[in-house]
């Protein structure tokens, strides 16, 4: 009984779970050139409590694993040979508090080395948002424990610094498709040319000879060096039979400012895949 009283006292002193904490970051790709020498990122706090935000830069780019899954490869100490801008792009301020339902602008200032060659230099902006710490208090005579964890969020977006003549190109090889569980995985390998990352989209359509594709999927594609992604197309609704997977790569991206996309001629390929009858 004493234990129950103590625990109920603990409970009465514990505030309700904190309301949602987080931050909106925009845009997801920031482009800077020597003319502006800087850019900006907008933060908005959609929650009802202030959010403490810290900003940092790091070097990283998307890569794929052996299963064709895209992840972000980060390097804490990039070699001098890689086109990293992480060490000379600064955020102002680096720490700030965004009040509830308010927005703040963080300026990015580039201080590139004067010997910079033409090309594109990459970094990632890391925006970490901390909500209020969970308040757990208990009286000294409590016989129990009270346990909770707060959730912080970290958002990573791309920063591109372009100087002089920049160009990109892409080679698509090794297009292939196979049935995996309840999906058709369509994969291809990409190698980037030029001195800038390729930013575009990979469109995959499965057709069985009919005029309209049986199903189609589009995913963003960002190739910095090489990438071998697989796109999973749900196959549950596909009738068993022979399909042609059509792959198309272009620079059709509605989420990025068109004028900042470096165009290439569309790449196409197709492969055959057979969807088996259910066992």
């Amino acid at each position: 009984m004493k234990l129950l009283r103590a625990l109920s006292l603990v409970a009465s002193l514990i505030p309700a779970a904190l309301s949602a904490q987080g931050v909106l970051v925009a845009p997801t790709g920031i482009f800077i050139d020597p003319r502006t020498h800087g850019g900006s990122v907008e933060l908005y706090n959609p929650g009802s409590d202030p959010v403490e935000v810290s900003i940092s830069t790091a070097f990283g780019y998307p890569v794929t694993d052996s299963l064709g899954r895209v992840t972000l490869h980060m390097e804490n100490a990039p070699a001098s040979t890689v086109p990293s801008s992480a060490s000379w792009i600064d955020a102002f301020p680096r720490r700030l508090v965004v009040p509830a339902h308010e927005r703040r602008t963080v300026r990015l200032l580039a201080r590139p080395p004067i010997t910079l060659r033409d090309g594109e230099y990459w970094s990632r902006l890391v925006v970490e948002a901390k909500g209020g710490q969970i308040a757990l208090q208990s009286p000294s005579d409590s016989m129990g424990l009270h346990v909770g964890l707060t959730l912080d969020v970290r958002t990573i977006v791309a920063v591109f610094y372009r100087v002089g003549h920049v160009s990109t190109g892409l080679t698509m090889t090794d297009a292939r498709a196979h049935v995996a569980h309840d999906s058709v995985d369509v994969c291809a390998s990409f190698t980037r040319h030029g001195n800038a990352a390729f930013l575009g989209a990979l469109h995959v359509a499965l057709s069985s000879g009919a005029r309209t594709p049986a199903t189609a999927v589009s995913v963003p594609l960002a190739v910095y060096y090489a990438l071998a992604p697989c796109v999973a197309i749900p196959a549950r609704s596909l009738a068993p039979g022979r399909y042609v997977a059509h792959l198309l790569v272009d620079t059709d991206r509605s989420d990025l400012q068109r004028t900042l996309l470096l165009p290439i001629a569309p790449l196409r390929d197709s492969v055959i895949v057979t969807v088996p009858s259910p066992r």
Partner: protein
Amino acid sequence: MSRTSLVARGVVTTAAMAIAFAAVGPSPLAAQTGTINATATVLQPITITGSNDLQFGNVFPGVNKTVDYTDATNAGKFTVGGDGGAQVAVSFTLPTDLNGPAGSTLPISTWTGYYNTTNSATSGGASFTPSATSFNTNLSGTTGSPGSLYVFLGATVTPAVNQTQGAYSNTVTMTVAYTGS
């Protein structure tokens, strides 16, 4: 040129001038117009929110307690919003201990997770083991429309029999990297 046409031309010209002047003459002011533009740029954002803290509530010394990711009240929950179909890599920084009074610690382990493009921790998504190694997925929908992703977290705390009484807490950080650019 005929006389008639000459006369007519002169009369019509003069009359037209008179009518034109008469039409505008009584107005004390001539209308003046100025034009400005209203402009805006809609940016493509990504929003990550810790929607629900991971709450173990009251725990007894010597008695392990698990919060499953399906626990709608106590499971940790993150929400990601952005462009439909956006590709993200998700990873976690997870504590191995919670910090309590006077430097005491409480072990936490057996992390479990579930992600879904709808707000459900039971169906339609996929379970995963939260770790520093990222998994990649896409937000719901297609580009140009709003997309979302929900991530649910559970774990187990293992208090010792002689665990110091008091409050224990720590922080879970979810990292979402936008890999589409």
